[in-house]
């Protein structure tokens, strides 16, 4: 399993197709705005960083797993590689 972190909507648009079915996707920083534009509930690989939602005043979307920094650390431990997509 690999963890793919996206930090902007652009990065997700360009590279969102890269994670495989068994990988996980983490939306951080400005990528959390995607939760207001797109229905992500069908994609069970998606995690959203709770602190970055809160910082931007966004509600935690229903039926999507929101995680803390500690959860993020735990995901990195479980992942073979952590890939960062920024643009």
């Amino acid at each position: 399993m690999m963890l793919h972190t996206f930090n902007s909507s652009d990065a997700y648009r360009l590279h969102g197709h890269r994670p495989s079915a068994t990988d996980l996707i983490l939306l951080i920083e400005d990528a959390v705005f995607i939760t207001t534009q797109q229905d992500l509930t069908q994609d069970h690989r998606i995690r959203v960083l709770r602190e970055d939602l809160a910082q931007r005043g966004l509600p935690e979307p229903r039926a999507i797993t929101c995680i803390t920094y500690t959860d993020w650390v735990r995901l990195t431990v479980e992942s073979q590689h952590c890939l960062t997509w920024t643009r």
Partner: protein
Amino acid sequence: MTELLFILSHPPGASVYAQEAFDAALAGSAFSNIAILFVGAGCLQLIQPKLAVEAHERKDFQRGFKALADYDVHDVYGCEDSFKQFGLHNQALVIQPTLLTRVDISARLKGAQRVLCF
């Protein structure tokens, strides 16, 4: 075996990031067996720039791509999807990377010891 796989995703031009990321890959090649993967807008680095020599506004760092073999770097890959997306198939490129499908990329990532994203 690839010890370090460098993913380069910054376009050339506006920022120095693409150039610095390539420097990091070169540094990696001095210490380990590396591979380079151009993805997304990073593939645009492969287009031969047309820079006025006297201008020096930006360094033609892509010239270094041609020297990769001298650094013993032979695994230079490009994302096939990105090549299609940016219409790079008919462009004059500094070097021609080995194009990889999404499945190929997954396999290269799995086979790498560490991955560094830029």
